[in-house]
């Protein structure tokens, strides 16, 4: 077996040294009735690399890869071109096979990278401090809610109706088991988000208001007034972003007064991967909130010779020290995805990020204008970045399947995201990135015309 270096001769010598007759003598503590007498039935035996690769390739070919079709899906996971050097770097054994950097003397590579990553995220979000990543955007959103409760010592949470429904579900699920009360709703079909309605739900019990920006329908709005209203009531504003590229074009949440900014970092470096692993981003505007943050934090220090170095720090917040009193039960971060984000962002730089955002927006505008001309179709949004909502005049779920039958991955239906909410059923979310070609836009337009006619 190609991953197991012991030979039978080795095993014999080692058993002799141990003083055991057979390997089963080492399993004496397992009650005899629980011991299996041979390989578990119902599973295949070991296989060569070639055979396994063949099997997995067969499974992979049963999926339609995004590159092989005109592709317009977003809704919290965006397809961008990832420079080839990103994957090359994250596959270096020293990064790929490293452990959590608890031994900083031999983990400066990971640690310095995390320090750079934290700085990039903080700046992108307009915040003071970001952590070293969480699992994904949706769990980061829940951690933000929990953190707001700790800070405000309140337990009522106001969720914007235009928060990604999976994120809202995660918050609601978790809240069932804690004492938090959650108020949320589905989005209204209107061209701009309902900030006034949201503000009206904030009261003295509110720990935080959670708003997505751009929101689930792709809409953009100035959040300053929400921030002011929340602060006036002693509540925090949590802003969720699922498309970091947007922040190369539009104001950061921090600039508009957000207290905690969380989001999904997948768009940069990580790729689609059918939903995971992704990259939870988490930042706070005010450094005084750092000690209430969940997850790992990397900080600068010096070594015994006075050289600059980096360590995981403030771990007294964490479970391995504080156990049941920790700020979160989280242990793992999304280290390798953070590296991918960090490398991609470094390749972009501010210049490239702004160019990338501009190109996304340009193509999205072009697509929206073109699609709006399809009979029966209208664009809901006044404003958007690279994703907008089309109203297609019939059940968009069906439309999506019919487009797929024509080889076009045409978007995400609101019906899939909000099953049973009739007023949303005709909505289709369409995302456009730099990977979208003009031919793709043409293909979607034509397919949509045929499907709707």
């Amino acid at each position, binding site marked *: 077996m190609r991953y197991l270096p012991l030979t039978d001769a080795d095993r014999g010598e080692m058993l002799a040294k141990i003083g055991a007759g057979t390997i089963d003598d080492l399993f004496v503590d397992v009650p005899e009735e629980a011991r299996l007498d041979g390989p578990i039935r119902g599973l295949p035996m070991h296989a060569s690399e070639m055979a396994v690769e063949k*099997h997995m390739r067969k499974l992979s070919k049963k999926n339609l890869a995004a590159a092989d079709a005109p592709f317009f899906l977003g809704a919290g996971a965006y397809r961008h071109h990832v420079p080839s050097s990103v994957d090359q770097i994250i596959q270096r054994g020293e990064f790929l096979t490293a452990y959590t950097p608890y031994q900083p003397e031999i983990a400066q590579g990971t640690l310095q990278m995390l320090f750079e990553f934290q700085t990039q995220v903080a700046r992108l979000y307009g915040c003071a401090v970001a952590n070293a990543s969480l699992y994904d955007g949706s769990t980061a959103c829940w951690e933000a809610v929990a953190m707001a409760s700790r800070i405000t010592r309140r337990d009522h949470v106001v969720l914007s109706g235009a928060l990604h429904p999976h994120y809202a579900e995660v918050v609601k699920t978790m809240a069932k088991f804690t004492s938090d009360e959650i108020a949320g709703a589905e989005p209204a079909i209107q061209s701009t988000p309902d900030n006034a309605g949201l503000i009206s739900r904030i009261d003295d019990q509110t720990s935080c208001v959670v708003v997505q920006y751009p929101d689930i329908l792709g809409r953009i709005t100035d959040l300053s007034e929400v921030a002011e209203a929340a602060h006036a009531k002693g509540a925090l504003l949590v802003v969720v972003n699922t498309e970091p590229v947007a922040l190369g074009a539009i104001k950061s949440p921090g600039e508009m007064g957000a207290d905690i900014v969380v989001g999904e970092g997948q768009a940069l470096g990580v790729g689609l991967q059918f939903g995971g692993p992704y990259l939870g981003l988490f930042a706070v505007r005010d450094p005084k909130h750092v000690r209430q943050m969940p997850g790992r934090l990397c900080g600068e220090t010096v070594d015994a010779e006075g050289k600059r170095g980096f*360590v995981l720090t403030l771990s007294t917040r964490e479970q391995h020290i504080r156990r049941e009193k920790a700020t979160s039960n989280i242990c793992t971060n999304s280290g390798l995805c953070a590296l991918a984000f960090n490398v991609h962002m470094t390749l972009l730089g501010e210049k490239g990020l702004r160019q990338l955002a501009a190109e996304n927006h340009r193509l999205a505008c072009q697509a929206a204008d073109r699609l709006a001309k399809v009979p029966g179709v209208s664009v809901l949004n006044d404003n958007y970045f690279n994703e907008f909502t089309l109203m297609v005049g019939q059940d968009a779920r069906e439309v999506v399947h019919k487009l797929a039958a024509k080889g076009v991955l045409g978007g995400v239906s609101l019906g899939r995201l909000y099953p049973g909410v009739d007023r949303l059923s005709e909505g289709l979310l369409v995302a456009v990135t730099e990977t979208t070609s003009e031919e793709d836009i043409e293909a979607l337009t034509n397919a949509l015309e045929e499907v709707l006619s």
Partner: protein
Amino acid sequence: LEEPLLFEIGRTNVTGVDLPEVNTDAPNRLGGLERAEPIGLPGLTEPETVRHYTRLSRQNYGIDLGFFPLGSCTMKHNPRLNEKVARMPGFADVHPLQPRETVQGAFEVINELAHWLITLTGMHGVAMSPKAGAHGELCGILCIRAALEARGDAREVVLVPESAHGTNPATAAFAGYRVENIPATDEGRVDLEALKARLGPDVAAVMITNPNTCGLFERDMKKISDAVHEAGGFVYCDGANFNAIVGKVRPGDLGVDAMHINLHKTFSTPHGGGGPGSGPVVLSEALSPFGPLPYTARTADGVVHLVEEESADAFSKEHFGGVMQSFGRMTAFHGQMGMFTRALTYMLSHGADGLRQVAEDAVLNANYILRSMEDILHAPYAASGPCMHEALFGDRDFGGDLSTLDLAKSMIDEGYHPMTVYFPLVLHGAMLVEPTETESKATLDQFIAAFRSLVERANAGDEAMKQAPYYAPRRRLDETQAARKPNLAWAEPEDD
């Protein structure tokens, strides 16, 4: 070679991608929210980027470079085939919300992996979406809470052994439970009688790690389970150490109700410097109905379904007689697909026979270390019999004022990652050594020789070890300063 920070070498007008120049006069639909202020994100061209990260990488130690005897962390070889498979476009370049008919292969991977996990553990169901071990623990505890609530049984306490991973009590607390400790015997195992005495109608669950963090198998596991069940509670098993018993024992046969599985430990998805992980949770028949959304299931026609909010109730009625009552969603989308493909690739490579060999070799390697060190290091549980996948030592016997930490840092100079130290908390100056099955006898022999020589130096009072490491990219780092005045993001140095 020192490598400066990106912020010291990059420039905001430099980029390593080729994109059209921004036309600031172009009309836009950004609602007047253009980001006008500088963001402060320096860029590097591709040659500079590759060099920056290649140099940084060389300040890291990884499994590819040497041995990580990290107890309870299971740092084993990460096969490269797994990386290749995960990058197949049909897995890497697929959106989680694509129409079902275009992602049948992805559903099949999830379902096939689920089948392996259920079969290897002898359990009834599995929740695939948890993002990491601790997330899996939370999932398991929430299943327990949901099951108890479904029968109208509000219980308040979760019992956890002192030797548990920190995530166990943190998870229980996060799920709203009060945590109480379970006492241990002198042999390093759960005290069955004391546990029985504490059980009662307020105990929702017992969280046990088996093999435990002392590296021992909980001989009384079945009796513990029976007692907990009799008292109306559930048994959560921390599966971090499943490496030791995979293919040899099925947790389901021991009465476990829920156990998370760290795919990055037992099933060798890479640690990646701290993640991403993946923590599916296998569930007993009693808990299976309460698992989170989404889940996959193959119906009689051979089609694999992904059951989400949209279809959960209807699907439960049609295929499960309405018994499925998910406690809800724990994460967006469907779990760590990239880790599933790697873990499945690993399982298929080893097969049922190979995985059994994995456990045997892991245990053999650990006992070899235990018996090669017990004469010079305090090994409190060595007398009671073999260890499982890891060997535990304490600092009782070294001389002088040298500490476990000094020994650990000195290992760096010998070319090794230090072992796990000061964990489990039950043993003073604990050193927990887990060799895993992918280390050769030659590596172990070298390691043992180095380890013994360090212990001897410590016993001889070698003060130089207090300053170790000497031959690493950094000497010991000042963690106190880092925490006292946290500097967590780069700032332009102020002018003098």
